[in-house]
């Protein structure tokens, strides 16, 4: 029972802190905030981390990672959030990259991993389909073998960033025999292939990040399949547990709660700051206690990982509680914005209209409804926990 850092870890923390102090955080954050320059800002930031050797710190060293321990990763995340620096995109670095270095061929590793690390390729994730959401294994996008190519037909949905992407990693059906999970393969598909169409899905926050992706007789070389045919579910599953821990976003919620606290010290009603409002205080401290606990739940999972246990079923707990906290913060923030919680502010400054955070609060609230739905809805997470943790 000890949470203190070793001398090496303290030195590491200082190094990370110093790095973020020198990094062009404000510049890239401004670029990322605008839809037109979003991709440019993201790539620039990721290349900056790449130059430092910290773009994929938990990857094994032989594949270009830094081989950090879970504790080092925790330190890095804490410092990143303290510096308000952007996170990296997970699709290449946290999702398909580990699948490729774990299950891919030597040739696949050499072809894809360096370009993922350098952010030369933008990846997106092709899992969900219009008819396969929480019941992911029921997916229908077909891949039929024709010589040394698969011919892919079908569609994927909720594909974040497909309109920017160079590559998509897909779960496709290569067999209809046996259980649904047994006929799935894992394919890497070039987004410039003939027959790939991307259609935007505007979301309720008024922005565009999601898409539908259609495949119409798209020819994919067999060498782009990861591992064995019909074993894709196994490779995909290892990634899902990881995705859930990423989604918890504990460090990010800490920063948002602190921001909310600052806002509450400025917003007034009847000449009194909202931080003194008894109902606000009760809602705030409720979130705060849950987040304080969640931070340690995350550390407990990390400590278990450090002693060799992978993120298992506890990752569901992190996902559920993490997203509940995020939504609670979104709700309290938009309520704190009061009458300004409904504004749409495309180009005006806060000086013009008299409010600083209402517009962002609205976007966060609306898009934040997705957090309890994506990555396996929270209800699915409860099913997983009931079955695999409680044995019901």
């Amino acid at each position, binding site marked *: *029972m*000890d*949470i*203190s*850092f070793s001398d090496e870890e303290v030195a590491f923390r200082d190094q990370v802190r110093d790095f973020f102090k020198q990094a062009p955080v404000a510049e890239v954050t401004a670029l990322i905030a605008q839809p037109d320059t979003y991709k440019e800002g993201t790539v620039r930031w990721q290349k900056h981390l790449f130059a430092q050797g910290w773009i994929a710190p938990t990857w094994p060293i032989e594949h270009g990672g830094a081989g950090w321990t879970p*504790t080092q990763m*925790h330190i890095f995340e804490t410092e990143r959030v303290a510096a308000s620096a952007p996170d990296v995109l997970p699709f290449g670095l946290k999702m398909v990259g580990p699948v490729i270095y774990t299950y891919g061929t030597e040739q696949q590793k050499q072809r894809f991993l360096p370009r993922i690390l350098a952010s030369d390729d933008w990846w997106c994730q092709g899992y969900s389909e219009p008819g396969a959401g929480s019941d992911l294994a029921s997916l229908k996008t077909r891949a039929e073998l024709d010589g040394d190519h698969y011919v892919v037909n079908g569609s994927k949905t909720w594909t974040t960033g497909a309109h920017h992407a160079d590559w998509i990693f897909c779960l496709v059906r290569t067999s209809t025999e046996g259980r649904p999970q047994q006929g799935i393969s894992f394919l890497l598909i070039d987004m410039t292939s003939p027959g790939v169409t991307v259609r935007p899905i505007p979301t309720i926050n008024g922005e565009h990040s999601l898409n539908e992706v259609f495949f119409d007789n798209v020819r994919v070389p067999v060498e782009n399949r990861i591992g064995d045919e019909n074993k894709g579910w196994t490779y995909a599953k290892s990634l899902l547990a990881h995705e859930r821990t990423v989604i918890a976003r504990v460090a990010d919620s800490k920063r948002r709660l602190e921001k909310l*606290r600052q806002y*509450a*010290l400025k917003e007034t009603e009847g000449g009194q700051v909202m*931080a*003194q409002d008894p109902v606000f*205080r*009760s809602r*705030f*401290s*409720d979130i*705060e*206690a*849950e987040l*304080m*606990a*969640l*931070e*340690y*739940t995350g*550390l*407990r999972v*990390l*400590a278990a990982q*450090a*002693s060799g246990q992978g993120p298992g079923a*506890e990752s569901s*707990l992190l996902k*559920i*509680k993490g997203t509940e906290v995020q939504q609670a913060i979104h709700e309290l923030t938009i309520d704190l914005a009061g009458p300004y919680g409904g504004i749409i502010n495309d180009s005006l400054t806060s000086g013009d209209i008299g409010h600083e955070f209402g517009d962002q609060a609205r976007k966060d609230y609306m898009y934040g409804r997705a957090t309890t739905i994506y990555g396996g809805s929270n*209800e699915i997470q*409860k*099913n997983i*926990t*009931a079955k695999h*943790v*409680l*044995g*019901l």
Partner: protein
Amino acid sequence: MHFNLSEEQAMLQASTARFIDQQYSFEVREKDVRLPEGFNRDTWATFAELGWLSVPISEAGGGFGGNAADTMVLMEELGKGLVASPYIPTVMLFGSLVDIGAPEALKHSLLEPLIAGQLQGAFAYQERQSRYNLADIKTAATREGEGYVLNGEKALVMNGAAADRLVVAARTSGEQFDTAGISLFVIDANATGVHKTAYRLMDGQLAANIRFENLSVTSDQLLGDEGDGYSLIEKVVNSTVLALCAEALGIMNKLTDITQEYTKARKQFGAPISSFQVLQHRMVDMFMACEQSRSLLYRTVCSVGTSDADRSLHALKYMIGRNGRMVGNEAIQLHGGMGITDELEVGHYVKRLMVINTLFGDADHHQQKLAQISLPT
């Protein structure tokens, strides 16, 4: 960074679990709790033999010198077994106050028999009007010659009926709510001028209202400096709150476990009710409530002595109160009609949880304390 138990802690945990498994069934507990003092003196003697009474007492006081994690391990196991004992009033409160406040001679004369299981203690701090305000003290200790004269009444003194000695918080100066001017005295609970009215709490333990009528005390009965008792109270209450939260977590986990077992065995509509999704999700909620509480308990243990200590402790007592209520209610609901029978252990665990919530500030109280740190007025 790790959350493993030390070798000694693992041994303590194993020995406590073994005691409960082999000697402390629910039937034994039910018999013990009905005894006139609300606990069994023989069980207490076993505690002494196993060394448990010395765990939080300093080495200088003749104890084991355990830290917050040691106490946590012991209390969590005692919670799982729903062990009826005066551990909190005698050891955590009385023992610790004497340990940190008493002059050497007095300290040893009290702690030696306490650790040997031969002395029962209690801490008389609360009054009828105090609720959760530890400084709301009207009981007066008036200077008279070399000593003092005590007058006033204390309420809800845990173990007040069985205690041989009491630590009494009394005002030597200041006004009713002042933290300054509170002094602590060790007194003989059976002295003339001490009047007790004992009653039971819903968890079976015996508490008492204790009235002091012109009770003479000498200045060598004083713990710490005159008028400076509040700082000792705060310190001891903080470690006691942590211990109570560990006990509560043990209870919450036990309730979650027995609820799962019950729903697996109970059949309705031709199937175990644990196969119904609506019940599964409720049991996952119970499990998450326990895990989040455990995380805060670890956080509080790790933060003792740091700037995060008070904030963690308030968050912990708040969450234990709130989640404990939820877990208790769900455990009864999922047991159906059986859940409200006295025969089943469920209700008895729930009642202990409810009493713990009322000790040293309930969920609402600590939520406000937490807000006072984050959003100071």
